[in-house]
């Protein structure tokens, strides 16, 4: 496929591409991570002024919000947007498009073979400055940097699915791969040597090896959190803040069922509960929320790990949801975000299937 050679580091090259896209009028706005130089604090920026590119850090190994979630509403504006998304953010966005919460129509997606992100606490503690250079070094060699999000360490979906442009940074060099007509069209006139090249497969294979091993270990470590006792142990300290659901790219409901009047109980409920079991946690329905959320969205979980990051009591939500999600999606050979035309498993059915149920 047609690829553009990046002479400088990937971040600088993509910054230049984004500036070009804005100044040439190819797009109206660009979505990218950015970092304020003075304070080091990061956020997701929707930038329209090319001079704003100076703060852009397109491949900052940080996820303050799942960009697929942030992109939802603005992707439906009709204006042209170029968005830099990590593979899981792109998959999360694709899942939202299927739920009529986003559109690919006027969108140019730029992604990369992803080395993972650091948990929020590393960003807050100000350690990024020394972590990022080491991160760049290691990921270029297909080695795993230390201290990443658990689900990043275990992520096998690090090659972007359906991006218009994907970036690979390996020991053989840095390349921008153009996957679509839109990618070719938008990069016309952008300076850079074009060659026929794919991402280095041996680099991908080495990454896959370490990721698969880490995934095995992660899922293994979650085995003990099984059975009713194991679940209560795992989720026992959940405080019901629902932060996990709010930062999840798949949970798009404006008013979550579990926060609605449907789950507010009147006194007879509490009276009966006390009569039946002598004691009850307040507020109720802690485990119900977790299991309920799994039934509603697990098959679309993209394993981004925002949920674990935001949990105020450090429950490893992401691992459990990713593990369970693979099982429920696997029932239908479904891969969330693989194909925007592939319907969500609960929206369709086959007349003959699952014969052993019922």
């Amino acid at each position, binding site marked *: 496929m047609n690829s553009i050679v990046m002479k400088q580091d990937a971040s600088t090259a993509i910054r230049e591409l984004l500036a070009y896209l804005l100044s040439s009028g190819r797009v109206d706005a660009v979505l990218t991570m950015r970092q304020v130089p003075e304070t080091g604090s990061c956020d997701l920026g929707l930038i329209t002024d090319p001079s704003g590119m100076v703060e852009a850090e397109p491949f900052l190994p940080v996820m303050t919000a799942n960009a697929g979630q942030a992109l939802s509403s603005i992707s439906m504006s009709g204006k042209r947007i170029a968005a830099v998304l990590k593979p899981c953010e792109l998959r999360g966005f694709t899942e939202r498009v299927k739920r009529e919460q986003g559109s690919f129509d006027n969108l140019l997606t730029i992604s990369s073979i992803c080395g993972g992100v650091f948990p929020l606490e590393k960003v807050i503690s100000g350690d990024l400055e020394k972590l990022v250079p080491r991160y760049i070094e290691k990921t270029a060699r297909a080695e795993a940097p230390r201290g990443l999000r658990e689900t990043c360490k275990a992520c096998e979906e690090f090659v972007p699915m359906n991006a218009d442009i994907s970036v690979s940074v390996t020991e053989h060099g840095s390349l921008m791969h153009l996957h679509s007509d839109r990618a070719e069209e938008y990069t016309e006139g952008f300076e850079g040597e074009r060659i026929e090249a794919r991402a280095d497969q041996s680099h991908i294979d080495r990454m896959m090896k370490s990721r698969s091993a880490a995934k095995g270990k992660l899922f293994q470590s979650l085995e003990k959190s099984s059975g009713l006792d194991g679940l209560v142990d795992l989720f026992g300290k959940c405080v019901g803040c629902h932060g996990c659901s709010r930062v999840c790219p798949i949970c798009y409901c404006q008013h979550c069922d579990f926060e609605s009047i449907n789950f507010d109980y009147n006194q007879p409920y509490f009276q009966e509960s006390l009569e039946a079991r002598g004691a009850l946690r307040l507020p109720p329905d*802690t485990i119900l929320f977790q299991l309920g959320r799994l039934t509603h969205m697990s098959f679309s979980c993209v394993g981004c790990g925002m949920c674990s990051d935001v949990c105020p009591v450090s429950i490893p939500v992401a691992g459990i949801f990713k593990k369970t999600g693979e099982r*429920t999606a696997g029932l239908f050979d479904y891969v969330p975000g693989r194909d925007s035309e592939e319907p969500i498993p609960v929206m369709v059915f086959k007349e003959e299937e699952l014969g052993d149920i019922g």
Partner: protein
Amino acid sequence: MISDKHDDFTPRITSFLCKWCSYTGADLAGTNRLQYPTSIIPIQVMCSSRVDPVFLIKAFLSGSDGVLMGGCHPGDCHYETGNYHTRRRFAILKEIFDSLGLESDRLKLSWISASEGPKFAQVSNEYTEQIRKMGKNPTRKSVFL
């Protein structure tokens, strides 16, 4: 809420039965004087697809020893396609339970038509026996749910 207080064990099986098929089937079992156990606690819904899997989870966590979901045979749904969705949702719920090591046998889906009084009685009897062997649901006692 189902108590753990008594030693004698009558399984409590919360049953969501669709009006057009399974609930009518249950009625038929009754009018034909076919014995089916008092363990079945029927809740009528218009269609099995009205049941959010969350209802089944809530019944399970409230201490139901078994949870039964009754619907029309696939292809016979009064609303044409409802039960196809039920089937998928139920499969997902079972998979979640299995994945998390929860006793998924305490959840059962059964297709029972309006004329299948005997089948309703049979399913109820067999399922009650199965649950009796499994014992009381530990969620009856759990305080930290």
